């Protein structure tokens, strides 16, 4: 146990110093394994784990879904989603913020990365909210909260990583995210309604849109709905595996973007770079985290922890609440992929041993990882959003995000009380 604690302590020092997450985890993993067991296998694992993972067919979904999201982002889809949301909701108090949450949800349905969602939606929605005198911190925080939907509503990078680590069926996991995604949209919109009723100056009403413009705005969104239906429907019915669906989705997005003549050469180039770069950074984290997790397993700490938790005989709910606390603390320091790769191999056996459904736990992990990404002081999404609205202070964004935690508490409570929200769709699949 002490070896693992030292490993974690060294890791956090390196992370705070600013060593890239993947390299830091890999370094501690290899050096720790070398000191604890033997240097020859420690080094041998580096090449082996790197090759096994970059040549893992299951992981090829990652670039395909990232490409699909990039194609939509570059074909002005984020703008169209937001315009559609605005057309229907903009004239209500807080309506532009509600439209932001809806548009984030829509964007999530074609994209798998919360960072991508935050980057795309901030540029689109924050300027409009500010034109209508929204409080800047509240506007920015809304986008950050909405972006956590991206890893929950399929496709999702975190789901791919979770499924690959645990051998849970990725198709079922994707279906399982759908209803909790809708629930989250509902909770966040309720938060916006409540906040703007109490403090109307945070989000004044925007302009009303006529029905003609509403229809036009909805017409722009249908191709995306169609593609989402084909991709998810295909997985649900069992026609495609997730990888195949990702290939079809990316191809469909490419055809749609090309048909709308939205693809310039420069954009195609930047999409290629985006996709390859994002994929590469994720793999550095995945490989590093696997090396680190390997040390934790080899040190016997994972097994010791598992036995210890089993001996406590905690009720399921208590176990879940403890894990929730751990994830929120870790989420302050690590990004979503790192946290998933690092924690799931350790917690998964404990959780399944306690009789918790592996798919339910996957969705739980993805939700709490998302919450970690918007938790001050280090919530990554808060900083991504703020990077695009330079005149908003960090403090303003931190205050803005606070009300959304009420929504988070409600949705997590509901998922614990009614696990069916997660499990009903995957159970209906073959």
């Amino acid at each position, binding site marked *: 146990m002490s070896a693992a604690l030292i490993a974690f302590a060294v890791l956090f020092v390196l992370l705070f110093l*600013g060593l890239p997450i993947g390299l830091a985890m890999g370094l501690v993993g290899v050096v720790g394994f070398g000191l604890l067991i033997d240097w020859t296998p420690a*080094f041998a694992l580096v*090449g082996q784990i790197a090759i096994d993972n970059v040549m893992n067919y299951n992981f090829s979904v990652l670039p395909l879904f990232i490409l699909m999201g990039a194609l939509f982002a570059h074909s002005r889809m984020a703008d169209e989603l937001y315009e559609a949301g605005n057309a229907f909701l903009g004239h209500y108090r807080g309506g532009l913020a509600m439209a932001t949450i809806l548009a984030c949800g829509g964007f999530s349905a074609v994209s798998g990365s919360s960072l991508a969602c935050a980057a795309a939606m901030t540029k689109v929605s924050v300027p409009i909210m500010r034109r209508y005198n929204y409080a800047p911190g509240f506007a920015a925080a809304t986008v950050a909260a909405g972006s956590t939907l991206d890893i929950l509503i399929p496709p999702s990078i975190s789901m791919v990583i979770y499924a690959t680590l645990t051998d849970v069926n990725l198709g079922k996991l994707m279906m399982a995210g759908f209803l909790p995604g809708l629930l989250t949209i509902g909770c966040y919109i309720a938060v916006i309604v409540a906040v703007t009723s109490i403090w109307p100056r945070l989000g004044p009403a925007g302009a009303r849109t006529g029905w003609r413009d509403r229809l036009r705005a909805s017409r722009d969104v249908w191709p995306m709905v169609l593609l989402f239906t084909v991709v998810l429907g295909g997985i649900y019915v069992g026609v*495609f595996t997730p*990888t195949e669906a990702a*290939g079809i989705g*990316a191809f469909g997005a490419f055809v749609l973007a090309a048909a709308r003549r939205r693809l310039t050469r420069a954009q195609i180039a930047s999409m290629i*770079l985006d996709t390859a*770069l994002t994929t*590469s950074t994720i793999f550095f984290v995945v490989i590093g985290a696997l090396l680190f997790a390997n040390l934790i397993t080899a040190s016997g700490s994972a097994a010791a922890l598992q036995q210890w938790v089993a001996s406590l005989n905690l009720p399921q709910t208590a176990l879940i609440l403890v894990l929730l606390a751990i994830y929120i603390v870790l989420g302050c320091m690590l990004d979503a992929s790192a946290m998933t790769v690092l924690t799931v191999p350790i917690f998964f056996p404990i959780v399944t041993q306690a009789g918790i459904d592996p798919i339910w736990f996957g969705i739980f992990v993805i939700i709490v990882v998302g919450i970690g990404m918007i938790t001050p002081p280090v919530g990554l999404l808060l900083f991504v959003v703020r990077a695009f609205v330079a005149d908003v202070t960090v403090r303003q964004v931190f205050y803005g995000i606070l009300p959304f935690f009420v929504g988070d508490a409600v949705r997590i409570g509901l998922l614990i009380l009614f696990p069916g929200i997660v499990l009903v769709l995957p159970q209906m699949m073959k």
Partner: protein
Amino acid sequence: MAPARLTLRVAARSALIGALGVTVYGMMALTFVDVAGRYLFNAPLGGAKELTEVLLALMVFGAAPLVTATRSHITTALFESAMKGSVLMIRNCVIAIVSALCCAVLAWRLWVQAVEMADLKGGTPLLGVPLAPVFYAMAILSGVCAVLTLVVAATAPPKPASEIPT
């Protein structure tokens, strides 16, 4: 001299984008043709899976030097803004050297794997695409990352804390 170097950089950039484009769009096209072939013509594309795996490996390591050059690695820069002057400089040096070492170890281990694969003359199961060259490429690209890390640290101004990769 300067324009020639500029042209060279543009050419290198285009070549890199082209190569990565082959991996990204190649993967998309392979999957699509495979699925379409299976359902429409009852003839799946033999070896689509293993080609996809090779393309994935080349994409990840092909983009790795770019990740290094643009400093897009995911970091947790908590106390970055708290450090100033010589402390910040020392910290930047340490980070660069440690990062470079990590990449160098990765390069070394991949090279070892590549040599083994070359001895075995190993290839992909269906099409027999030789894997040793793929592993050598991965090793060399990791080595490039190690060198680039040091070059970037020595030449580029420190990255502002707010700049997080998207």
